[in-house]
């Protein structure tokens, strides 16, 4: 039974890839939906079992095809990876369930099959990135995820989509180029591709090759930074989000930009290790870019006209928080970075789906047109409010917990001034989320001419949204368990 459960990570990747190519064979839309939902829930359940197993008896290494380490591909499955894996599957399930009702409105009916194929491929590659212990294997999964993500963006086949897809593809391939060059340098030093072996090789003959290590580190940071929407390199995100259909923009901002960050953390701590890392200034670079991201992300979000672009920029700001966590360099900072990945994924998915339902029901795009929407779609705006409260940092919600612990981490690392940055950015969040909520629910001239519950969607379509917000609140309330769970599997 034990090794059956150990098979789950590889099995989930395989199942997803397999069914990705079964879906085009189905003719009817209804069958496609049914199949995808069944498969997705199956994968989520087995991942859940897997997490429970890991919680009981800890992480392990898994040789794919029983080839030993230096030659075969090895998967490292710890608490962090299994947790993130479960998160990705759960959110993908919710998004698919939501798109079950709203996808026809956005893309042509013959394209739905392609959408689901690409989505399965994307999820498989993301899980691959998270689980892999071999950097070249990671690179390949990165490429697959880029193409799949590009596919999702372009599935809507509008002018803006294509332009956004081209921009995303060019930038991502630039990023992958840098990552490959980084791998080349690391390979030239260590001669291995499996992370643990590279680590030992690097430690032994690190003296002479200090420059090479430094260059490879920078290449990895920038390469994965683009894919993870680090602040200055986030340019592709807003265009991709504003044009893409809302389920895909939810997946994009909740999952696609998270996996490269996990890969970056693994590269930092499993390939280079803390000794080499503390020697260099790379973490301070990440911290600096994270801080910039937090401040300017919110600033740009504030001045956006369209709702989706605003939420996209807010993702850039939240990614800034994650980079801030990594950049601090201490254990609590890293744990909180991963916790924020989970919190942000759930909250952002919730935000994007509710925004999507606003746009779908009213047909408008810009924020000013959403004045008084609270009267027409009170429940959806309610969910939007809860998730934005978490973004702003109201005590019970996960947003607050990650802000609080990031502050503790920054005090621990001795950088008191960063507290002000944290406070300022959460204030800036409030500045651009609250007008939407206030103008949605209150204001005489906003509500004139609006009929109560006129544009409501049937409750069963809102179910995924409700579940997501409930999970978010639970993530906030039981953050103690999650943090402790991540703490056990952290790499430092």
């Amino acid at each position: 039974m034990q090794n059956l459960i150990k098979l789950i990570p590889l099995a989930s990747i395989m199942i997803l890839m397999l069914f990705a190519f079964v879906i085009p064979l189905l003719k009817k839309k209804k069958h496609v939906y049914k199949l995808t939902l069944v498969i997705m829930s199956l994968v989520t359940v087995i991942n859940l079992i897997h997490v429970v197993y890991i919680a009981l008896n800890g992480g392990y290494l898994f040789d794919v095809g029983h080839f030993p380490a230096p030659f075969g591909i090895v998967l490292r499955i710890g608490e962090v990876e299994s947790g993130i894996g479960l998160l990705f599957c759960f959110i993908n399930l919710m998004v698919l369930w939501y798109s079950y009702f709203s996808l026809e409105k956005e893309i042509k009916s013959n394209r739905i099959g392609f959408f689901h194929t690409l989505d399965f491929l994307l999820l498989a590659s993301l899980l691959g990135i998270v689980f892999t212990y071999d950097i070249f294997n990671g690179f390949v999964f990165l490429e697959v995820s880029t193409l799949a993500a590009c596919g999702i963006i372009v599935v809507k086949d509008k002018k803006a989509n294509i332009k956004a897809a081209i921009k995303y593809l060019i930038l991502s391939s630039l990023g992958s180029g840098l990552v490959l060059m980084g791998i080349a340098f690391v390979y030239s030093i260590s001669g291995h591709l499996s992370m643990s072996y590279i680590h030992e090789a690097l430690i032994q003959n690190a003296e002479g090759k200090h420059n090479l290590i430094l260059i490879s580190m920078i290449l990895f940071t920038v390469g994965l930074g683009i894919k993870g929407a680090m602040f200055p390199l986030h340019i592709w995100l807003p265009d991709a989000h504003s044009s893409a259909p809302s389920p895909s923009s939810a997946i994009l901002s909740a999952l696609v930009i998270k996996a490269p960050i996990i890969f970056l953390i693994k590269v930092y701590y499993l390939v280079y290790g803390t000794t080499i890392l503390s020697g260099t200034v790379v973490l301070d670079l990440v911290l600096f870019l994270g801080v910039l991201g937090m401040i300017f992300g919110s600033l740009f979000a504030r001045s956006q006209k369209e709702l989706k672009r605003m939420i996209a920029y807010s993702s850039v700001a939240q990614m800034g928080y994650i980079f801030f966590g990594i950049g601090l360099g201490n254990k609590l900072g890293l744990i909180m970075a991963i916790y924020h990945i989970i919190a942000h994924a759930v909250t952002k998915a919730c935000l994007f789906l509710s925004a999507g339902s606003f746009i779908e029901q009213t047909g408008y795009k810009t924020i000013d047109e959403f004045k008084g929407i609270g009267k027409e779609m009170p429940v959806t705006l309610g969910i939007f409010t809860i998730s934005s409260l978490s973004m702003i940092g109201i005590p019970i919600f996960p947003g607050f917990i990650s802000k609080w612990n990031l502050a503790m981490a920054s005090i621990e690392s001795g950088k008191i001034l960063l507290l002000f940055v944290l406070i300022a950015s959460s204030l800036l969040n409030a500045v651009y989320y609250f007008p939407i909520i206030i103008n949605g629910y209150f204001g005489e001239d906003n509500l004139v001419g609006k009929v109560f519950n006129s544009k409501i969607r049937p409750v069963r379509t809102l179910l995924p949204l409700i579940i997501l917000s409930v999970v978010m609140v639970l993530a906030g309330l039981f953050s103690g368990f999650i943090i402790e769970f991540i703490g056990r599997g952290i790499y430092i």
Partner: protein
Amino acid sequence: MEKIIMLLPLGVPIVGTLLIADKKIIKDEYVTKFVSIVLFANFLLVLTSLFGNPLLQLHVLGVNDFLDVYFKIDQMTRVFALMASILWILTAFYAFEYMKHEQRTRQFYTFFTLTLAVILGVAYSGNLFTLYAYYELLTLCTLPLVIHTGTEEALSSGKKYMIYSFAGASLVILGMMILYSITGTMTFMPRGIFNDLSNYDQDLIRFSYIAMFLGFGVKAALVPFHSWLPNAMVAPTPVSALLHAVAVVKSGVFSLIRITYFVFGASVIKAVNVTQYLIPFVVITVVMGSLLALHQDHLKKRLAYSTISQLGYILLGILMLNPNGLVGAILHMINHAVIKITLFFSVGAISHMTHKKYIHQISGLGKKMPITFICFTIASVSLVGIPPTNGFVSKWFLGVGALNADNLFYIFILLLSAFFTAGYLFPISVTAFFVNGKQNAKQQNAKAHEIVVEASLEKEAIETSDHSEQMDHTGASIASETLDPSPFMLVPIVILTVIIVGLGIFPNVVINFLGGVIADAF
């Protein structure tokens, strides 16, 4: 069983809110009845939980050491919870009548009851985290009340109120983070959590105290962050009476007392001598509030600035760090709440009955609305601090407290601003009673704008209408129809005035009640 009794006062209003919010369950005409039932039931529950219940503290949700919702009852909680629930009931009655000519009353009552739950939460909170959580929720659920009228101006003042409150809340969070990183615990201990000062970093303590003081100061209308209060006067009177005289500002002051005496502890603050940085703010608040009140011609704006200055008194009392100062501060917290709510109610009654909002418009109105204006006059006399009423008692303790802190400058400030208080409150009563509106209206405007220090009349000055000039003495007074508001509005005002005078003559009742708080704090 005790657990339930302890949690009920916090839960019942929330359940009530949910019921009111739903149109189907409570029909429109039953809303007011339902609200009054909820408030009364809650008042009884508060009484049982405060006094009857042996259980005094309860961990509701202890996830990890800092994120735990912890309720604890001590003497300070009793003071604040009692004050809030009593004044809430009176405001409810007042609001039933006042809201008749406003629209969207259901939305008003929903958030009205919700705010009570949050205020009780602030009172019951046992550690800094719960206090911060409720403090944050307080902004959220008072916001819809502030922008109730929905006009453009209301929305912009709501926005300003929100920005100030959130800036304040983030300052508090800043202070809390540093405090937590130093001490590792945030529960309220009677004499503060720092046992010996040696092993803590002094300027971190200083920095976190200043951050938290300014953070909570925003809600307590400290000078640089006070300008949201006058703007929030755009809200309907029950809201501005209850929130900006009692609930919101007092929760700011209450939390300040909590962090000064139950988190840091008076001895620690004295040792770190951080008050010297904060005293200038407080002094400016006291004098500026009352001075700018002289300028305002709009009645509610004038009362708003007076609130700012009176809150400065309370903050001064807190920063004196001695028993008398603290008693003075808490006493003034209660007295000011009672007085200011009376003033706001009478101003509300005037605008409700005659739609007059400016001082120069109400000349000669005293004859037509005698009871309202008498209560207004007694309340303003008490606010100035003329002895027989309760304002004097708290000023007396503040003065003695200032002397114990051997700082004569405080007393000078207190008395100077008392003089200004007389300056901006008495003209209102005088123009109402002694200036007959008819023939010298224009002269009246000149007077109203020019700063006039006028006396008011001490006790009842019920006015019979003018007699005809005939010589015989038989002419019984022909009282022209009085414009006094309906009993629903009048009864709360009269009750509050009786409380003012009663507290003034028999203050020992409250002072002994506060003895418990002093025992905890020192």
